């Protein structure tokens, strides 16, 4: 069969030229946005959850004199393990390893190089928040304990990574010694009109969807970072994260969102931090947690405003500490949501305080 061809008309030629030019422009704009290399010392472990998913758990060995327990670092929603291990200068994981702590970063299912949904391979789409803490967290904690011989490990969770540990510990999860959460809300019903508007999108999201946030972030990266850019407003303070770093992060650390996770967490706009079926109230269970927890909030975190993190702090039952990253509290600039992990001065302003908390010996025991 011979395909017939014909020369394009002038308007079509113009459109084609414009398209090529646009692709070229975007391509050249993206040229500098290459993901930074992983840490040379990093070793990826493949672990298996009880329900058969393979997850990526990366070990960064302690450098110099090893001290303290291993630390598991868990990222937030729409992210992956590179969230906490971005590049040489902005990596909490590498910083901890330089301080003598063995650091482990986890990519939750459906993100990074962990398994993605594949019904044909027995991995159905539609995993929710509950799946993360019931399956992925225990698998990672057990794997690290088995690898290192530590009875209990420390834990740092950013955003949803902190919410996961609240749910895990509140339901009797074991194996953790001390915990830090950063920008982790337990309610978002403070009268935000934009969160209310976002709820209007609920009907178009289905639980079985994987929202292609990774691809969208990569396409949008060259344009990201403007002062009025909604993502900037939501996630960063440009005084802490310059545009170029933020754009490079967009092509590295942003990942897809499971529709079921989004739908479950969207209930927080109505004040509910609960299991997907509503049967377990995770907020109420905070009072049962005895593991010591440092709750970190950012003064300019518009995604998890300080009052949303304070809600967790005030409800926690055991030893707890509160840290507000704000100019009034000694920071050079107020912290936004991503500034805890990507901020220019996080390694001097925040991370030493975090490590100081982890270094303290816990009084109680949680098994």
């Amino acid at each position: 069969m011979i395909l017939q061809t014909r020369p394009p008309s002038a308007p079509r030629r113009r459109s084609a030229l414009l398209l090529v030019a646009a692709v070229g422009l975007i391509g050249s704009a993206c040229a500098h946005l290459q993901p930074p290399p992983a840490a040379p010392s990093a070793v990826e472990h493949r672990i298996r959850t009880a329900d058969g998913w393979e997850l990526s758990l990366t070990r960064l060995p302690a450098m110099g004199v090893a001290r303290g327990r291993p630390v598991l670092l868990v990222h937030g929603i729409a992210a992956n393990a590179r969230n906490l291990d971005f590049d040489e200068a902005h990596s909490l994981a590498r910083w901890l390893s330089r301080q003598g702590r063995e650091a482990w970063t986890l990519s939750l299912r459906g993100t990074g190089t962990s398994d993605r949904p594949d019904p044909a391979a027995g991995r159905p789409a539609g995993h929710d928040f509950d799946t993360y803490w019931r399956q992925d967290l225990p698998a990672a904690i057990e794997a690290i304990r088995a690898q290192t011989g530590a009875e209990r490990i420390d834990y740092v969770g950013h955003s949803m990574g902190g919410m996961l540990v609240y749910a895990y510990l509140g339901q009797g999860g074991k194996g953790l010694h001390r915990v830090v959460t950063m920008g982790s809300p337990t309610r978002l019903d403070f009268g935000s009109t934009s969160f209310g508007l976002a709820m209007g999108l609920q009907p178009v999201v289905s639980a079985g969807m994987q929202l292609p946030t990774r691809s969208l972030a990569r396409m949008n990266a060259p344009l990201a970072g403007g002062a009025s850019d909604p993502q900037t407003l939501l996630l960063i303070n440009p005084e802490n994260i310059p545009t170029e770093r933020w754009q490079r992060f967009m092509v590295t650390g942003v990942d897809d969102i499971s529709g079921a996770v989004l739908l479950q967490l969207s209930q927080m706009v109505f004040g509910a931090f609960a299991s997907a079926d509503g049967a377990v109230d995770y907020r109420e269970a905070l009072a049962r947690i005895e593991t010591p927890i440092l709750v970190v909030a950012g003064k300019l975190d518009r995604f998890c405003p300080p009052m949303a993190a304070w809600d967790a702090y005030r409800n926690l039952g055991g030893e707890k500490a509160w840290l507000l990253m704000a100019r009034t509290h000694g920071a050079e600039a107020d912290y936004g949501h991503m500034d805890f992990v990507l901020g220019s001065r996080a390694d001097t302003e925040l991370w030493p305080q975090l490590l100081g908390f982890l270094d303290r010996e816990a009084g109680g025991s949680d098994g």
Partner: protein
Amino acid sequence: MRPRGRKRAQGGADYKRTAWVLALLLAGLAHASMPLREGLLTLPSGERVGLLHLPGQLPGGAPVLLVPDLGLTPLVYLDQGRGLAATLAAAGREVYILDWSRTDTHGGLEGIVGRILPAALRAAGDGGPVDVVGHGYAGSLVIAASTHEAEGLVGRMVALSTPVELAPPSPVLTGMLEGGGRLADLALTPGGTRTLDLLLMDGGTLSSGLRSRLRRVGVLNLESRVATDLLTWMRSGELQLPDAPLVERLRRYDRPTLLLLPLRDNFAHQEHAAPLRELAPRARVRSQQLSRLDGLAEDYTHVSILQGRHAPAEVWPHILRHLRGPALQVEEVGP
């Protein structure tokens, strides 16, 4: 040397008071349609309570009492004829503003809750319930008083960043309070001015003229006992009142309340105000966060929530709507 210093500071306070009253009177002259009256109550205890009265521009308007935060003058509500006070008066409300610069606060927070605020509420409401806009820590004290000493005297309540559950203060605030609460004196040095701006205005959209006036005549030195009481409250997390701690009183608090929560308030942090909803389950508290994420022009600070460039369009409508609300009766929603 010390007494001389105190005398100079006292003289400074007198100067500020005079300047503030003059500024208001001049503003009043410039706005002939807005006569401003000064009132002074003397309590049986000998304490004085300063009130400003801005008559409503329509007949029969209900009274409203505006309470600036501790350490702030009425300028936050009325600056050169402009402000929430003028807007409420134009809407027909009889507006009263508590003037801390002419009010005795040597009795500390207990005296403010027990005597000063009840007297101001009685005067403004003529013995009946009066709607209140309460700012910061002073707003929290109004809420506390309304459950006991001023029971039945508060109608609807607008709570602007009113802390009810505190944490140890920031080093900046600690420094100011440990130094005796010399908030106004901060403006005397460049370093102090930066601290004052950080606490009250950082990130807000105030005009340069207003910033300047705020530094000169908008802030007051706290009574040292008030500073000590505030520091104790912040460090312990709980305000102890003669009959019960604040948190216990809040269980009885039942006024319909709008709680505004500005993101960048460095003087009264939003996280310390937000728990009012849970601590006062009978009060039907409706909270409204103020942040650029919600399409607002700024994230709002302790002062810009009232006097920011965009506050008339973005913040005051919430207040006016709440104060227009209907019944004062409150449903019982459980213990």
